[in-house]
C-alpha cells in the first residue's frame, strides 16, 4: 500500500517550468513517479523534457487524469495554485513552497478539510514511498523499501534520520514530511492514522520539534489508536525560549511547546524518544529486530 503517494499517483507539477520545479519534477519522474503534466500559465502546449505543460490545472486533469499535485510556485502564488488544484478535482496536494501567509493557509485548511482533500505542506519536502513514487524534494537515493513509516515536521532532519535507518538496514514504507509552517494541511495524527491502517508499515518514526502542541496531541492519539510501535525524536532541546528558530513553527513561548515537555508527553504514553538521530535509528533497529 504505502501512504499519500504510490503507484497510482498521477502527478501534475504546478511550476514545472521553473528552475527548481523542473529539477525536482524531473527527478521525481526519473525515480519512477508518473509525472503526467506540468502547469504554467501562458506555457500551455509546451513540454518539459516530454512532460506536457498546460495553462490550467483543470486542463491538465482533463487531459492526463492527474490526481496529485506538487506545488512548486513562489509562496505568493501558492494559495491560488492550491485552490486551482483542489477546484480542478485534485485530491492530494503536496506544497513544497514555503512561507505562505498564515491567514491564507488557515483559510485553505478550513476550505479543503471538509472536502476530504489530503494536503502536505506548505514548507514540506513531500512524500516518498520507496520503490513506488517520490513526490517532492526528498533525496530518494538514500532510502530503500521497507516497513518503517516516517512522519516529520522537518525536511532535512527527516533525511538524516531516514539515512541512519537505511545504514542499519531498515527500509521505509513511506516518508512523509508534513511541513514546518504554522498551519499545514496534515497533522501527525492524520499521518499516524494512515500508517496504522497501512499493511506495509510495521514501525513508525515520528520526528517532531519545538513549538505548538502537535507532538503532545500525537502522544495522546498514539496511546488510544496506534497499535504499531512508535519511536520519536524531538529537535530543539537547546533552543532558547522566545526565539524563532527558522521554521515559523519552531518557536517556544514560555513553558509550553519545549522539547522537554514534548519528550515527557510522548514517554508518558509509552513512546520511546531518542535524543539524537543516531539513537532514534538504534531504537528503531532494536524494536524492528525484536519484532521479527
Amino acid at each position, binding site marked *: 500500500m504505502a501512504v499519500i503517494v504510490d503507484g497510482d499517483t498521477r502527478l501534475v507539477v504546478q511550476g514545472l517550468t521553473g528552475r527548481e520545479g523542473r529539477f525536482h519534477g524531473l527527478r521525481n519522474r526519473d525515480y519512477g513517479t508518473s509525472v503526467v503534466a506540468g502547469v504554467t500559465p501562458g506555457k500551455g502546449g509546451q513540454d518539459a523534457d516530454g512532460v506536457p505543460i498546460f495553462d490550467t490545472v483543470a486542463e491538465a486533469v482533463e487531459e492526463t487524469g492527474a490526481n496529485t499535485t506538487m506545488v512548486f510556485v513562489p509562496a505568493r502564488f501558492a494559495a491560488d495554485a492550491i485552490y486551482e488544484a483542489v477546484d480542478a478535482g485534485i485530491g492530494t496536494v503536496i506544497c513544497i513552497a514555503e512561507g*505562505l501567509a498564515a491567514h491564507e493557509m488557515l483559510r485553505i485548511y478550513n476550505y479543503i478539510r471538509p472536502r476530504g482533500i489530503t494536503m502536505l505542506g506548505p514548507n514540506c519536502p513531500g512524500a516518498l514511498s520507496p520503490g513506488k513514487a517520490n513526490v517532492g524534494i526528498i533525496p530518494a537515493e538514500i532510502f530503500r523499501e521497507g516497513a518503517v513509516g516516517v512522519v516529520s515536521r522537518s525536511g532535512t532532519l527527516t533525511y538524516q534520520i531516514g539515512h541512519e535507518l537505511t545504514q542499519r538496514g531498515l527500509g521505509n514504507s513511506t516518508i512523509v514530511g508534513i511541513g514546518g509552517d504554522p498551519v499545514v494541511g496534515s497533522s501527525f495524527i492524520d499521518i499516524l492514522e494512515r500508517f496504522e491502517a497501512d499493511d506495509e508499515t510495521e514501525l513508525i518514526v515520528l520526528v517532531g520539534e519545538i513549538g505548538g502542541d*502537535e507532538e503532545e496531541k500525537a502522544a495522546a492519539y498514539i496511546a488510544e489508536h496506534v497499535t504499531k510501535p512508535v519511536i520519536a525524536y524531538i529537535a530543539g532541546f537547546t533552543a532558547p525560549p522566545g526565539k524563532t528558530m527558522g521554521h515559523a513553527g519552531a518557536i517556544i513561548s514560555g513553558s509550553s511547546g519545549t522539547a522537554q515537555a514534548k519528550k515527557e508527553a510522548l514517554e508518558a504514553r509509552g513512546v520511546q524518544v531518542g535524543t539524537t538521530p543516531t539513537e532514534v535509528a538504534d531504537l528503531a533497529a532494536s524494536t524492528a529486530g525484536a519484532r521479527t
Partner: protein
Amino acid sequence: MDLYEYQGKELFRRFGIPVSEGRLATTPPEARAAAEEIGGPVVVKAQVLTGGRGKAGGVKLADDPGDAEQKAEGILGLDINGHVVRKLWIESASEIAKEYYLSITFDRGAKRVLFMLTTEGGVEIEEVAATKPEALARLHVDPLEGFQPYQARRLIYGAGIADPEEQKQIAKIVEQLYRCFVETDAMLCEINPLIVTPEGEVRALDSKFTVDDNALYKHPDVEEMRDPEAYPPEERAAREKGVTYVKLDGEVGILGNGAGLVMSTLDVIALVGGRPANFCDLGGGGDAQGVVDALEVITADSQVRSILFNIFAGITRCDVVAQGILEALSQIKIEQPIVVRFDGTNAEEGRQILADAAPPNLHVEPTMLDAARRAVELAA
C-alpha cells in the same frame, strides 16, 4: 514581526478601536513637549519589544510636563530584559474603574482564530488561565465564517460582563479587533488591559501586536514600522542578507540547511560537550551567495572558535554549497577551522569540489555525529 505598543495602538486606532491620545518621544525634552501638547497628567511608557516593563520601572505617571521630562530621563536607557529603552510613549493618563483582557490569536493547534476575553485583566493571561479558568471566555472562529456578531455576544456573556453599555462598546471592539487581525495578517492582537473608565468608557490601554512576516509584503505600511535597532546587531546584519540567524552563547558556529536539522545539530553539539554559538539556517534554496553571506554573519561573532556545516541536501545541492564555501574563503578572511558534512543531493559532487580545492583548515567528516565531535574538538 512584533510591534511596539504605540504602533499596535496606531493600528487599533485605524480600525476604530478606542485608544488614549499619545505622542512618541525619544528624549526627555520631547517627552515634556508631548505632555504639554496632551495636557493634564500623562503616563510615560517605555517602548520595548518585551514584557515586564512595569515591574522594571518602565512605566511612570507624570503630573505635569516637567514631571514627564524627569520621568523620561529615568526611563530612557533602562535595560529591560536585555532591551534598552530608546523610545517612550507619552499618553494621556486614564482613570481606571475596571481592567479587562481581550485578545485574538492564531490557534495553530485548532486551526482556528481564537478570541479570549476576561474581566480579570491587567495580569498575565496565563495566570488567569491557570488560576481562574472559568473567568476566561474563549471562542474559536472558523476563518471561512468570518466575524459574526454572536461571537462577541458569546464572549461578553461568557466573561460575565453584564453592563449593557459595556456590552455594546465591547461588542464593537471585538468586531473591529477581528477586522484588524485579519486585515493586517496579524498572529496576535492583545489588549491588556482593556479598561473601563469611571464614566463607563471602554478603551485599549496597552497593545501587544505580532504580524506574520510572510504577509508583510501585503502591508508596506506595517513593514515600515519595523525598527531595525530593536534587534541585536548580528541578527540585523543577517536579516539584511536574508539569512535566518539567531545568536547564542557558545563557541561552535553552526550552519545547516533546514530548521529541524540545524536545531538537531545544536542539540548534538551540546550532547557531545560543546556549546553552539548560533542557529543559522541556509534555508531551502541555499545558493553560493547565501553561503558567503551566512559565513560572513557567523564569523562576525568573535566568540566563534570553529564552524560546522551540516548539510543534508534535498532541494539544496551540496555542490552549490561547496562552491559557496570556496567563494567565501576567497572573499573573507576566515581564521576558524571549518568542518563539513555533506549528504543527499549531489553530496559526492560537493565533496569532490572541496577535495579538489583542498583549502587549508577544512575538514570533511562522514556523519553528523562525527562532524559535531570534530567541531567541538576544534573549538576547544
